[in-house]
């Protein structure tokens, strides 16, 4: 089993620069600095590594979109990791922060960038402190600052702490938060590669993507592309949580059967229970059922199955949990985190929660399920960012796959409602001309 990011991750003191260097750390940076920036970029493109944050866009391609030239360009590491079920970046930053810093320096060299930022969510105080110390060590050792290791590369790095907002994981909202504003997403295009932070070209990548960069340079892009399967190359950290016996982070080669992750690595659901449904890529991914457990875990297969790999976080729900509860927890999260800029998302998430609460309290009719489906349909594609879609897709998939259970829940809740059996309150007469 190939381990790149998690190889001996628990070595004591790995977060310190001396231990990291003793293990061969920063040798990839030295190798990269002997190459031309274009060659480094070519290696990244040859690796075909797809972004590990959720969208799955090829990292090398994204870096190549940055304009050439001497204007102020920026590198942002997206360490906002707030997707429910995702905790891989936390483990990486806490235990091996220098791997991320080295990856960022190499990426900055490849794209000709002189200023970099790590946007870390405010809740990760321990990890931010570790990163702060690691950045200071890297400055002291000459890996950051001016003329790094005698080359022409100059790079500054700042750890920026967020203050608790899921939306700041969206790249343009992250840029606004980094500029000291409310974290509202921006209209795209222009994309950050052309106009991002402080209106300059900006490269934004996830922690895991950037932490993989040193390994790509060490082993060569073509060699890295041999890992995994076609179109989903390399290894991936998978966070498994929910109703499993051994939750945690696992490094897998993309393309292994999902069953092997959920049952083999994470131990499957508790004794006597079975998988009811699972989110393959964080709470934003449409749910899959037990029938889909044998699907290979890679980007294309999951997309074909109507879901997505997303951030690579699997949440397992066992058969003891009512699906309405799962839907309600999911919808409430997105209602709370919607920034309120676009109407479909702000109102749609709110109404979906209200309808789900009605279902739970016995005031709903099966027609509400259709209304909910139509609300979800009208959110998708109609907002600046995909937060609304990220609620609409899983809720829509739950209603589609578990409709009988929703209907049974409506009936059962209605029977248990104290007002059951009373004649309905007549609707007020419509006033003529009131329209």
């Amino acid at each position, binding site marked *: 089993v190939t381990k790149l990011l998690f190889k001996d991750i628990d*070595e004591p003191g790995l977060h310190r620069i001396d231990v990291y260097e003793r293990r061969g750390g920063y040798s990839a940076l030295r190798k990269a600095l002997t190459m031309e920036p274009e060659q480094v970029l070519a290696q990244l493109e040859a690796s075909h590594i797809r972004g590990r944050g959720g969208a799955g866009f090829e990292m090398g391609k994204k870096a190549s979109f940055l304009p050439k030239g001497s204007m102020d360009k920026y590198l942002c590491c997206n360490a906002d990791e707030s997707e429910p079920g995702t905790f891989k970046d936390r483990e990486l930053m806490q235990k091996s922060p220098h791997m991320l810093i080295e990856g960022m320096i190499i990426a900055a060299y490849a794209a000709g960038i002189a200023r970099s930022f790590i946007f870390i969510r405010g809740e990760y105080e*321990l990890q931010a402190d570790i990163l702060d110390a690691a950045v200071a060590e890297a400055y002291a050792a000459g890996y950051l600052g001016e003329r790094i290791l005698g080359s022409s590369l100059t790079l500054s790095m700042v750890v920026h702490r967020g203050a608790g907002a899921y939306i700041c994981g969206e790249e343009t909202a992250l840029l606004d938060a980094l500029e000291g504003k409310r974290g509202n997403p921006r209209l795209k295009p222009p994309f950050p590669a052309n106009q991002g932070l402080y209106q300059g070209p900006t490269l934004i990548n996830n922690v895991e993507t950037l932490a993989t960069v040193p390994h790509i340079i060490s082993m060569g892009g073509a060699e890295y592309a041999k890992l995994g399967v076609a179109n989903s190359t390399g290894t991936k950290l998978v966070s498994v949580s929910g109703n499993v016996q051994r939750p945690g982070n696992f490094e897998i080669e993309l393309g292994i059967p999902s069953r092997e992750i959920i049952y083999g690595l994470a131990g499957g659901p508790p004794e006597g229970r079975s998988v009811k449904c699972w989110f393959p890529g964080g709470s934003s991914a449409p749910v899959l059922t037990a029938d889909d457990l044998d699907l290979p875990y890679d980007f294309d297969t999951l997309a074909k199955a109507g879901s997505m790999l997303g951030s690579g976080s699997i949440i397992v729900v066992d058969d003891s949990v009512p699906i309405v509860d799962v839907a309600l927890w999911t919808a409430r999260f997105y209602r709370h985190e919607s920034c309120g800029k676009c109407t479909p998302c702000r109102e749609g998430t709110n109404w979906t929660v209200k309808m789900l609460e009605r279902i739970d309290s016995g005031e709903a009719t099966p027609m509400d399920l259709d209304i909910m489906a139509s609300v979800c349909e009208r959110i998708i594609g109609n907002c600046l960012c995909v937060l609304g879609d990220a609620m609409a897709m899983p809720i829509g998939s739950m209603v589609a796959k578990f409709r009988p259970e929703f209907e049974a829940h409506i009936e059962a809740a209605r029977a248990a409602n104290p007002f059951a059996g009373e004649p309905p309150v007549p609707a007020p007469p419509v006033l003529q001309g009131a329209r």
Partner: protein
Amino acid sequence: MTGVPRFGHGSRVPGWDTAADLDKDPMGVPDPATTPVPDDLRAEIEGHMAKYPDHRSAALPALAAAQRLHGWCSPDAIAQVGAVMQLTPAYLTAVASFYDMLETHPVGRHSVYVCTNISCSLCGARELYDAVVEATDGDPAFNVRSFECLGACDIAPMASVDGVYVGPLTPDDVTALVEDVRAGRPVLPEKQLARLPVADPDANTRDFQTS
């Protein structure tokens, strides 16, 4: 109207009974000459401002620093940040009200964020949250909130106590947790996230003493 709005210390929020004066100019940038700022806070904010090409980027860390000092983003805290950063209170209040970790109302000094998102709820976070609310029982020293995913689903159900992640918790742990916070001790040391080795069985090829 549901009563007069009051600060946590009891005094009425200024302006609660006056109508908005539409002829008045909006409040400008606080005057540094008449807004005293503690030296430590000023130094910290100026340190943050120096790190960015545009000093406004320091708004979030500056507000967080002011909140650490004042306990919440009070009008005083906002005015002090505004005086150092030369930003209006309106702008800073708009920023502070957007983010979950910046408090726009007085709260207890000790924050207990109980994650009640999907993974934690699947493992019993609702019962945990109820137990924490019951154990603190309106103690003004505590700021108990049910929080969205804190990114530690491997130790679900979990809580972040003054920024320290602890889990997995059961309702039985809550008494010890609250006592640790009241006594100023490290919270549940054997349940803190920092001690946790990675779950992947093949990750460590050598045998490490994980403490």
